[in-house]
């Protein structure tokens, strides 16, 4: 029944964030009192995350901003089940995370590509691992290469690409995997302003068209506000959530045009002021 609700809304994809979210929708991710410590040389552990409570709704676009070292990447790793929390629990789709849950895709901060595989093979990995039938790979890879502006580089090895191009390949692999929950760790960090704009638009299109949830880590407050339903601000030592902003800008949004809205400017200003930058 959940299914039918979703498919009804897939075509529309126009409502505001609030309207799009059905009241019965189950949260996609729940963090309850999550803490993470790493062993440090001093003997007692280094507290990287402290008492994190966070709920990520189904079909929500959530951004996390915060200073370097505040534990953003660690938080994504906990959600992805790649490492266990030291305290508290993490639930994805209602199940306690003990290992990588199904239907969750993770784009690392560092573009982690297979150095011996071509661009097409690296993107194809996402298709292999989500069980796309072999016959459909070729067409889907070509589609993604076009989308990412990498068609000419199909058979290149990663070492022959620029940093921004490698990041696009990693993005392509994630889009190929097409999970229900996207964990994206500074996915646009190495992109130039123009490509960033194109990728941002594409991400918004995919997110609103298919029933995706996104957790988006970034340093860039404008980027976070432009994309998200909600922005979470973290602080370091220990890593914790200090504030949260609901972004009620209209949807569908254009990643660039939205920046011209006075509400957009006001939201960004509020966040800047709250984190102590005048």
């Amino acid at each position, binding site marked *: 029944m959940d299914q039918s609700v979703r498919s009804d809304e897939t075509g529309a994809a126009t409502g505001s964030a609030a309207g799009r979210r059905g009241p019965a929708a189950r949260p996609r991710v729940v963090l309850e009192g999550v803490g993470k410590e790493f062993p440090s040389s001093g003997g007692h552990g280094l507290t990287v995350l402290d008492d994190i409570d966070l709920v990520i709704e189904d079909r929500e676009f959530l951004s996390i901003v915060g200073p370097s070292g505040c534990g953003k990447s660690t938080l994504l790793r906990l959600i*992805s089940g790649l490492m266990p929390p030291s305290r508290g629990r993490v639930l994805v789709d209602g199940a306690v995370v003990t290992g990588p849950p*199904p239907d969750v895709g*993770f784009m690392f901060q560092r573009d982690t590509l297979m150095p011996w595989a071509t661009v097409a093979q690296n993107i194809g990995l996402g298709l292999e*691992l989500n069980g796309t039938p072999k016959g459909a790979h070729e067409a889907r890879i070509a589609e993604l290469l076009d989308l990412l502006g990498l068609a000419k580089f199909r058979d290149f090895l990663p070492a022959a690409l620029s940093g921004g191009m490698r990041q696009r390949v990693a993005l392509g692999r994630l889009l190929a995997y097409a999970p229900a929950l996207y964990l994206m760790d500074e996915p646009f960090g190495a992109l130039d302003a123009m490509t960033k704009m194109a990728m941002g638009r594409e991400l918004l299109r995919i997110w609103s068209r298919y029933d995706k949830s996104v957790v988006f880590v970034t340093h860039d407050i404008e980027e976070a506000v432009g994309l998200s339903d909600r922005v979470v601000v973290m602080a370091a030592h220990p890593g914790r959530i200090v504030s949260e902003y609901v972004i009620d800008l209209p949807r569908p949004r254009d990643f660039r045009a939205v920046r011209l809205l006075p509400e957009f400017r006001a939201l960004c200003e509020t966040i800047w002021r709250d984190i102590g930058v005048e």
Partner: protein
Amino acid sequence: MTSPSIETSAAIDTSPSITDTRGRPATRAGWFRLAAERIAVVAAAIAVWELAARTVIDPFWISSPSLVGVRLWQLAVSGDLLWHAQATVWQALLGSALGLVCGVAIGALLARYSRVAAAVDPILMGLYSLPRIALAPLFIIWFGIGLLSKVMMVFSFVVFIFLLNTMQGLRAVDPDLVDLMRSMRATPAFIARRVQLPSILPWLVTAARISVGLALIGSVLGELLGANRGLGWYVEHASGRLDTTGVFAGLVALMVIAVALNTLVDLAERWLVPARP
């Protein structure tokens, strides 16, 4: 006097493929130039050798390229060359194959269980450093005088090379790449095939390159201690009769085989490890 010059020429001749496998000539013209340079170096070494044998040093001590050439021709025509070379190469290949399989298997286990690896490290290094020549008599007692003792001698050289390279290669695997695949719920078998295996291929090619020389040494060493066949046996036999030409003929045959096997490794590398620009 002149035999060092042969060794020098061999070293110069092969060093580009030992030290700098990525420095392959990019163009056809480049290939021809490199081939011409290599041939020139070998020719120069042979010329110096021949000249020395004809002028200053009695060929009784150092033979001469023409004498060696005639001897190799005779051996080739009579079929003796093939007979001996076959034995030496076959032992080297069998021992290397066994060393590769066991070395990779043990290396993979030790990379997986690092505490075991730490525990057995001293004994491994101890065994690795043992002078095989001292072990050779034991090998004959254990494995007899036939094929097996030679194969095991080769194995004792080669297995450590593959073991250590496999271990190092697996430790150098990018942990993020493994994590990335895990996040997409790839099975351990899938990850082994798609991450670990391609990551260690360059290490295995390096191991194979080192093993070519060691396998021939092991094979010849096995023959020196008891055999009736093989290039090692032939060299030993010739030197017993003070037949310098026979000794050099055997050594030249061994060098040619080493270079040929090394070329095979190069070809395998080109096929297995895509060039990274």
